[in-house]
C-alpha cells in the first residue's frame, strides 16, 4: 500500500530528479492555496484575537458563488472570482458587525461563536444546495510541460492569482494608512486606540479582508475540486496547521508555514501516503507547540 523510495523508483520513468520536480511543483501549488487561507485566518486572529473557525465556511461560500455565477449564470470566470471574493468579504463584515464584535479579545467565547456560525452555514448550504458534490466546468484546461514536471494550467492560474493577491495584501499592510493601523492593532490594540485608531472600523475591515481572502480561495479552487457544503473543513484544518507552524498572528509566518506545509505534505503523500502526510503535518504542530510555541516567525506574547 505504501511504496517507499526504492519500491517506486525502479519503475519510474526518468529517475529521482523527475519525481522530485513533480513533488516540488505539486507542493508549491497546494502551498499557495494554504497561504491564501492562512493569511486571512491569522490576520483575523492578530487583529481581533478571534480564532475564526468559520474560515472554512467562507471558503465554501466562495465555492458556491462560483457554482452560481460561473456554473449556472455563465459569467466570466475571472469576474466571478473577483465578485465572489468581494461578496464573501462583505458577508464577513456583516458577520463581524452583527455577531462577532461582542467577542473581541475573548478567545474562548469567540471561538465557540465562530464554530456555531460555521455549523449553521454548513447546514444552511446543505439544505439549499443538497448533500451531493457538484462540479463546474473548468475555465482553463491543458498542462504546462516542463519536461521534469507537469503543471496543469488551472493550477497555474490559481498560483498566479494568489501571488497577485499576496502582493496586493502586502502593499496594503505596508504602505496604506489602514494597513498601518491594522499592524498597530495587531501589535498593541490599546496603544493603537490611544493613537486614534478606531477599532470599530479596523475590526470589521480586518475580518472583511480575511473573509475576502478565504472566499477568493474557495472561488479559485471550485473548478479544480468539487463544491459541497463540507468543502471548507479540510482547508480550514490546513490553515490552522499553517498558522501554528508560522506563528499565530504572523503574516510572514503564514506565508512560510503555508509553503512549508504544502511541500512537506506533497513529499510524504507522494513517497508514502496521504494519511502519512496528514499525520506528519500534525506531528509538526505537536513539535512546534512543545519546542517553539510561538511558531517559526511568531513574536513572543
Amino acid at each position, binding site marked *: 500500500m505504501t511504496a517507499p523510495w526504492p519500491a517506486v523508483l525502479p519503475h519510474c520513468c526518468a529517475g529521482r530528479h523527475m519525481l522530485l520536480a513533480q513533488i516540488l511543483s505539486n507542493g508549491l501549488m497546494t502551498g499557495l492555496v494554504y497561504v491564501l487561507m492562512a493569511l486571512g485566518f491569522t490576520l483575523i486572529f492578530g487583529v481581533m484575537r478571534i480564532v475564526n473557525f468559520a474560515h472554512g465556511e467562507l471558503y465554501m461560500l466562495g465555492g458556491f458563488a462560483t457554482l452560481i455565477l460561473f456554473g449556472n449564470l455563465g459569467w466570466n470566470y475571472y469576474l466571478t472570482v473577483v465578485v465572489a471574493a468581494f461578496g464573501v468579504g462583505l458577508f464577513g463584515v456583516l458577520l463581524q458587525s452583527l455577531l462577532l464584535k461582542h467577542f473581541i479579545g475573548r478567545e474562548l467565547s469567540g471561538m465557540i461563536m465562530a464554530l456555531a456560525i460555521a455549523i449553521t452555514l454548513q447546514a444552511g448550504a446543505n439544505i439549499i444546495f443538497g448533500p451531493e458534490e457538484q462540479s463546474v466546468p473548468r475555465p482553463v484546461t491543458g498542462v504546462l510541460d516542463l519536461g521534469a514536471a507537469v503543471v496543469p494550467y488551472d493550477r497555474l492560474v490559481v498560483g498566479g492569482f494568489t501571488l497577485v493577491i499576496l502582493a496586493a495584501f502586502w502593499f496594503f499592510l505596508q504602505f496604506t494608512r489602514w494597513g498601518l493601523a491594522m499592524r498597530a492593532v495587531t501589535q498593541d490594540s490599546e496603544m493603537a486606540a490611544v493613537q486614534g485608531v478606531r477599532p470599530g472600523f479596523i475590526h470589521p475591515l480586518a475580518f472583511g479582508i480575511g473573509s475576502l481572502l478565504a472566499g477568493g480561495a474557495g472561488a479559485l479552487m471550485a473548478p479544480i475540486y*468539487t463544491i459541497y457544503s463540507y468543502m471548507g473543513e479540510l482547508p480550514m484544518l490546513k490553515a490552522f496547521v499553517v498558522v501554528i507552524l508560522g506563528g499565530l498572528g504572523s503574516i510572514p509566518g503564514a506565508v512560510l508555514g503555508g509553503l512549508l506545509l504544502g511541500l512537506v505534505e506533497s513529499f510524504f503523500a507522494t513517497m508514502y501516503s496521504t494519511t502519512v502526510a496528514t499525520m506528519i503535518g500534525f506531528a509538526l504542530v505537536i513539535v512546534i507547540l512543545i519546542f517553539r510555541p510561538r511558531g517559526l516567525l511568531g513574536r513572543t506574547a
Partner: protein
Amino acid sequence: MHRTAIATAAALGTLLLAAPTYAETLRLGVVSALSGPGSAWGLAVDGGVRIAAKEINAAGGLKVGGKTYTIEVTSYDDKYKAADGVTAATRLIEQDGIKYIFGPLGSASMLAVKPLYEQNEILALVNSYSDKVLDKNTKNIYRVLPTTREFIEPMVKWVKQHKPGLTNVAVISPNDETGWASQALQKEYYAKHGFKIIASELFERSLKDFQPLLTRMIAAKPDIIELDTTPPPTAGLIIRQARELGYKGAFVKIGGPGVPEIVNAAGKDFAEGTIVYVGADASDTKYKWLESEYQKLYPPPMNSFNVFFYDAANMLFESMRKAGTVGDVKAVRAALEKITPFKGMQGTLSWTGKAYYGSDHQLLVPVFVGMIENGEEKVVTKIDQ
C-alpha cells in the same frame, strides 16, 4: 326514532362487514430511505415496488388461487438509519400486520431489522452491501441487488478479453469499510484473471488533491487505474488529475454507477473511454417506460435501482400465483426459491450465494458493461449470468 337508529346502525354494520369480501387486498410494506442523503437510492426501492403494483392493479389485480387481489403498498421512511429502520419495520409488522416487506436499503438499517424479519417470518426482499446480511441461517431474507462480489468477475473477464494488452492494474478505493471490502475483491479477481496488481491505494473521503498519490501511482506504470467504489465526483477528479499528470492508460470503474457525475468532474475529453459497471440499460424501451412511470411518483432523475425492485416485486407476485396463496408465507417462500431462472426486465435472474454466503438467497442479475463515449454512458454489452 329508537328503531330507526338501530336499523341504521345495523345497516352500517352490514356494509362495513361486507366491504372486505368484495375486494381482497394484498398489502406490501416498504422500509427505505425516502428522505435525506440516501434517498436517491431509497426512493428507487419504493418506486420500483409501487410501479409494479400499479401495473398489476391496472390490469385488473393479482389473480391468485381463484381470488383477485388489489395490491396496496405502505411505505415508511428509515432515513438510512438503523433506529428509524427498526421503528418502520415494527410498524409494518405489528400495526399493519404486513407479511411481505421490501427494503431496507442501507446496511446499518438492514442489519438492525434482520432479526425482526426472521423472528416474525416476514418474507423480505432487501438490499445492503454488507456481507453480514446473508448467512447459512438466513431463511426469510433475500437480497435482490448485486454487490461487488456478484458483478466483479464478469466485468474483469470482459476487460481481459477485450483489452488483452493491459496487464498492470492500480486500484484506488476510499479508506473505510466499503473501500476495504471492495478493494480486497478487486485485487482477488484481477489477480485471478491474469492481471498484475502493481499498486493499491486507500484515500480519505475528504481528499480532493490526488496529485501526490497519483504521481506515485503513475510512476509504477499501470495500464489500468481501477476506481472501485470511489464516489463518482471524486472518481472524476482522479481521472482529470491523472490525465493532467500525463497518464495515458485506461480507467475502469467496477463499483457504483454515476457516469454524469464522473463526466462533470473529469470533463468530457478526459472521461472518454472509461469502462464502467452499469446496473441497468437506460436506453432500453422498458426502462424508458419505467422512467415515465417513476416521474408520476417522484421527481426525476430515476435511479437504476428501480429496475431491481420492479423485478423483485414481480418475482414475488409470480411466486404467489405459483403457490396459489397470499396468506401462507411459507408456501410463497418455497415458490419464490424455485421460481428462477426468472425473466426480469432486462435479462435472466437467478438465485445464488450458497458457495459464499451459505444460502442461495442472493439474486444474480445481468451485468452491463458500459463505456463513456462523448460524455454519455453507452452500454457496450450485456452479460447474462
